[in-house]
């Protein structure tokens, strides 16, 4: 049994005799020499990842103004930072969006601008106190003017991540990128063979205090990240590092269209090879790491798993879903992950970076539970109107006009001969038809792309559909596309009014 200590390895780093390889290179070494031989041969294995880490942010300290202010709310380039802590500290989160530019500029962009040394406009307000009389502050700063700029990421470097696809008939815009209709593509995240936590799945060397590569400089693991769920293979880490030392090579703002901003963070963890079990773990390959392909078309916490898949399959460029070959796209950069693993390797070789043991192990038994919701979560069936009249697609539009008038409905779902929903006509469609004087059947004037709801869908989902599709009613259909009700924006507003 091979046994090494951190002190021995750091001694080798100091005298230049250390043997460091990347996690990719380690696969072949363990293949050739076996775990024991590799453990004797290799002292440190480096990992790396470069991907979107939404849960990132930076603590900033601005120093005191004259006269002093205790800032209660503040904005950096019009992006709100949390400043309900002491007087001149604030936390800027990556996903907070600009009040004026919306999704195109967010906290992540402020962070990248700081790293690049660009100037940032600050606006702060305060109620004023005897000790902090000032009520408003406006100034322009850059990163060098700050006392501290400490990156603190509450949940980063997910051990692995679910892959995403979309079974609906329209494109979805998510933090996993654009998901094309009818499972048109699959996106995934994570560095597979180079994945930091997968190379030490028992967290023997990764824990509180572990020294790591973060954003191009040395950083540290603070402890387990939020939602750390090791039993399910979804361990996470809380990380910290000095933003002032970081590089725009490894800290990059991103915008996911229709979702918002996020920060691409480069991080890597060195794994000291203390024994052959660790050597064996660092030989993990893309084919060994399994994850789920989830259907993001179902807007629920419990998205259906369409299949399991290995990172090897995902990285091959396409996977099979229900007999169809679907192209895959990573959201994180393997090329940059590799650069990070190699840069960290170089630092260690050059004697610029020493490995560390955690001062506290990460928990192995915590679970990520769902939110406890004490208020009832109403479903569409609770508020929909079941008194809904439909019209056949081959009816004349005069008949549709008559129903709309008699029933005082604004929306009339249109069905085919088998009673399946095929469209919707509104009073507006009818007015248009009358004005143009050119159509006479319902199917000629109806909207064919109907946005629908299911009876057991949460009302919040319907509210979002109404809003994002700019429509005012959703026919409620069962699994056979038979219309069982209708829910309007009025029904939902009334419900929400009661809730607030």
């Amino acid at each position: 049994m091979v046994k090494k200590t951190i002190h021995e390895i750091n001694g080798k780093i100091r005298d230049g005799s250390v043997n460091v390889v990347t996690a990719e290179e380690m696969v072949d070494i363990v293949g050739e020499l076996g775990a024991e031989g590799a453990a004797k041969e290799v002292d440190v294995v480096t990992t790396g990842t470069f991907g979107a880490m939404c849960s990132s942010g930076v603590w900033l300290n601005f120093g005191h103004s004259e006269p002093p202010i205790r800032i209660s709310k503040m904005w950096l380039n019009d992006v709100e930072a949390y400043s309900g802590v002491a007087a001149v500290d604030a936390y800027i989160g990556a996903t907070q969006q600009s009040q004026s530019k919306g999704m195109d500029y967010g906290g992540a962009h402020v962070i990248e601008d700081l790293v690049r040394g660009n100037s940032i406009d600050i606006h702060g307000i305060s109620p004023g106190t005897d000790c902090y009389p000032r009520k408003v502050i406006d100034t322009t700063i850059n990163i060098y003017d700050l006392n501290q700029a400490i990156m603190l990421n509450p949940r980063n470097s997910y051990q692995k991540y679910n892959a995403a696809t979309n079974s609906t008939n329209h494109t979805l815009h998510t933090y996993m990128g654009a998901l094309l209709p009818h499972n048109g593509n699959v996106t995934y995240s994570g560095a597979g063979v180079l994945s930091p936590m997968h190379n030490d799945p028992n967290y023997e060397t990764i824990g509180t205090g572990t020294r790591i590569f973060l954003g191009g400089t040395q950083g540290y693991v603070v402890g387990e990240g939020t939602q750390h769920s090791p039993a399910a293979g979804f361990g996470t880490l809380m990380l910290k590092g000095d933003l002032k030392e970081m590089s725009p090579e490894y800290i990059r703002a991103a915008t996911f269209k229709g979702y918002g901003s996020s920060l691409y963070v480069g991080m890597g963890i060195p794994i000291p090879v203390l024994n052959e079990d660790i050597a064996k773990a660092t030989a993990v390959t893309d084919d060994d790491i399994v994850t789920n392909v989830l259907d993001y078309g179902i807007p629920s916490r419990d998205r259906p798993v369409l299949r399991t898949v290995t990172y090897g399959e995902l990285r091959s460029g396409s996977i099979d879903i229900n007999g169809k070959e679907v192209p895959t796209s990573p959201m994180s950069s393997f090329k940059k992950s590799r650069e990070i693993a190699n840069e960290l390797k170089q630092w260690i070789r050059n004697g610029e970076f020493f490995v560390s043991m955690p001062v506290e192990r990460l928990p192995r038994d915590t679970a990520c539970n769902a939110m406890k919701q004490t208020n009832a979560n109403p479903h569409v069936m609770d508020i929909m109107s079941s008194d809904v009249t439909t019209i056949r697609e081959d009816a004349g539009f005069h008949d549709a006009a008559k129903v709309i008038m008699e029933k005082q409905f604004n929306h009339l779902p249109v069905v085919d001969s088998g009673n399946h929903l095929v469209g919707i006509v509104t009073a507006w469609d009818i007015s248009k038809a009358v004005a143009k004087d050119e159509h006479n059947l319902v199917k000629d004037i109806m909207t064919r792309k109907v946005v629908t709801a299911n009876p057991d869908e949460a009302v919040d989902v319907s509210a979002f559909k109404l809003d994002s599709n700019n429509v005012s009613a959703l026919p409620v259909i069962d699994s056979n596309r038979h219309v069982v009700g209708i829910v309007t924006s009025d029904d939902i507003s009334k419900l929400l009014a009661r809730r607030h």
Partner: protein
Amino acid sequence: MMIKINIAANIVTKPILAESILETGALLNISQAHFDPTRGEVVAEITSDQFRKIKDSLVSKGAEVLVLDTPISRDEEECVECGACISVCPVKVFSFADDWGLEVDSDKCIQCGTCIKMCPHNALTLGH
């Protein structure tokens, strides 16, 4: 070369594409087609020596023909080579090289714009 054929509502039901192909014998390789009651839009590849005659034929039937000569371009500084653009491109302009860098075969681009919305780093543009 890639061309885009716009067909207005008043002629969208007429088989003008088929007529032009038969008339000129030009091998039009259609890569995208979108039709609805209000208009038609077809993106196709054609060899440059056949371009003139098919254009004249289509234009004489009321269609509009545009040459797609400003394909997708990538800002290499902004691009982090994540590969997010790969799976959304209908004609496989993007792929990974052996070193996992991004390869862009912009000659194939039909300028649909899908990848521009996908790129998290705003690295892609059309028309420059």
